[in-house]
């Protein structure tokens, strides 16, 4: 360790800090936050190396020598200085260009993906879940409902890739994805199916979901049966409170 010059150590620490902030923190930090933390790291490092004169010499010496150059230095050293001297202003010029150029990115629309259901839907249970005698029958009935109604968006494989999926901007939910129905209770599905995209609460605006209000088109029984089918086909179990 002692053989690495101070400037190398500082460089390594700086890069390690960056990598940790970039890849180890979950959920990922926005780049503006990373920039803020890295500025702090830079200030701390500079403080540290300038406390003792020896450290300061060890740290700034090579930098000074690189900037100032030497009369009898090689051509490569000269060339690398020219490159660095042009690259750094270019970098800042480019940053300035980017921040001044008007952005044509549409406004980002954040939304709550799984909002809390209204109270009347909390604690509902699927009346067909415990009916072991007619289970297969009810699943098949749910499948029929799915393939008559839901398949156009949610797809033949229940993967959210139905023939109309491309036309909707929130794509239809992919039920085979482990972060959808397996994380949710049946009552939540019943709410979302019954009330549709337009029935979402305020915090989930914009109401971009194309999900119809199925209570207008399917009976309560049919809605529970289709939920039974979704879990049976994908092999997931609904989330419960136990």
């Amino acid at each position: 360790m002692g053989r690495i010059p101070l400037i190398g150590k500082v460089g390594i620490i700086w890069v390690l800090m960056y990598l940790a902030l970039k890849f180890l923190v979950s959920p990922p930090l926005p780049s503006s936050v990373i920039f803020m933390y890295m500025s702090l790291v830079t200030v701390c490092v500079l403080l540290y190396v300038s406390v003792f004169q020896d450290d300061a010499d060890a740290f700034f010496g090579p930098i000074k020598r690189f900037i100032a150059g030497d009369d009898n230095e090689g051509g490569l050293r000269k060339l690398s200085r020219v490159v660095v001297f042009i690259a750094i202003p270019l970098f800042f010029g480019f940053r300035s260009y980017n921040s001044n150029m008007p952005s044509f990115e549409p406004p980002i629309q954040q939304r709550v993906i799984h909002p809390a259901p209204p109270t009347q839907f909390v604690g509902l249970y699927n009346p067909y879940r415990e009916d072991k005698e007619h289970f297969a029958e009810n699943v098949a009935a749910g499948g029929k409902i799915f393939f008559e109604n839901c398949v156009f968006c949610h797809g033949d494989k229940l993967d959210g890739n139905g023939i109309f999926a491309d036309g909707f901007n929130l794509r239809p939910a992919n039920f085979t994805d482990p972060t959808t129905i397996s994380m949710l209770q049946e009552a939540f599905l019943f709410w979302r199916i019954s009330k549709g995209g337009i029935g979402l609460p305020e915090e989930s605006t914009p109401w971009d979901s194309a999900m119809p209000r199925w209570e207008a088109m399917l009976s309560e029984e049919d809605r529970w049966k289709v939920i039974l089918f979704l879990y049976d086909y994908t092999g997931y179990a609904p989330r419960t409170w136990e």
Partner: protein
Amino acid sequence: MRTILSLFFFLILALPAFADEKPASGGSGNVEAGKVIYDKRCIFCHGKEGAGDGPASERFSPKPRDFTMGLFKYRTTPNGMMPTDDDLFKVVSHGLPGTGMPAWDDVLSEQDRRDVVAYIKTFSERFAKQTEPLPVVAIGAEIPSSPESIEKGRELFQKLECFKCHGNEGRGNGPSALTLTDDKGDPILPRNLTLNWHFRGGGEAKDIYMRINTGLNGTPMPSFTDSLDNEKSWHLANYVRSLSPATRPAMDVVIKSKKVTGAIPTDPADPFWQAGGEGGQDANWFPMVGQVVRHERHFTPTVRDIFVKSVFNQDEIGFLISWNDPSESKEGDPLPTPGGAVEEDLFGSFGQEEDSSKAAAPTTASDDAISVQFPSVKPEGFKKPFFVRGDDKLSVNLWNWTAGKLSESNSNGIDKETMQAQEGVAIQGAGGYKEGQYQIVLKRSLLSDDKVNDTQFEVGKFTSIAFQARDGHNGETGTKMSISHWYFVLLEPETPKEVFIYPPLVFLAVLGFELILRWRLRKSNDSKK
């Protein structure tokens, strides 16, 4: 000892897997295993007995394949012949784009798919009767696409009368297009050859080569193999391929409306809108889907693609909207009877008697129409009116072109449309139908007097925009239509002057700092010496 034993067992277990790597054409699938997969994955469309009558079949067009007929469209075998196992395997694996048939290769293993193919073959006796090996259409040495090859292909397209179904410009609008039926008596439309991403069997020249040499069994599409040799097949395939864009259009959710200096012409044929003109930029492409959100739903829309571009000047904003439709329809036009006017000689043995048991359909068409939808008032924050014609709280402003008539309306829900007084209609527009394609220009002043009902356009602001289309030959009236989701139109602001001033200043400042630093360092080094 244990290692040797486990190695031994591993080999025993692995052997069949290696054997399955390259199954011989013609039966490496297990019928029993295939039935288990079929009963879980396939019956909802293709039905318990393979008759294409599962619960999903009612609302899909094209309908799921009826395996009991033993007729398969996408083959490598000559016209009228059975498909090879590999043909069926390919369809199961890769699906048929634009239909309900998905690609199963991410869910089912290769062996699973072979098993399903084996089971599917039990539904029709024609497979059992097929004992001799099937001949396969060979694709000869490729002739790469070139202007000469495309021109020769165009001549063949005329000579072989492809235009009778596919239309002069290939948009699936030929004179007999609306009368065609398949062998089950269901109406069938000729493919629009200008949108190759919808081609079921693949959109590249080699796929087209295969289709024109094999035909599509059970449909009016014959094989032209008797009139084509390898060279001619490539020419025709290259021509058909050239009718579609080189690459599938990518979706950009923002229509960038371009600032122009002069007037915005309402005639879509004006050189202004053509390549090289002020409004000659590439159009945005958006997918259109059936209105399946509100009762009464529409599952088989005609219009699946819409192309839009926009320009503005200091007073007005204009949109050029184009979409494909195999027929021009006006309210009251008589509808053709499917199967009624099929030319028998063209389709040989595949012209079948029509099914007279079909329920009485409407006998006259309604108007073809397009609507461009905006929020009536720019909403606060992220709120937007519901994308299908607004909601109770937030209304939308619609610019309607209905078989040549212009109107403006507001809507608070799919069945709550209020027409604006005709004398106050501020939009202007023109355009019409030509060779299977509509091209319509709609324009309006950027700002209007009615700030409550009319959307207002500001430079540099994102305005939500959506589209709705109707094909009057497809029963599309009322709630039945093609819809799009919300996208954006942005009136491109001029590049601010800062963009050209600040970056060079920053560059010079940083460079100057570097040079001063170097100068000072050298000076202090010199003084030390």
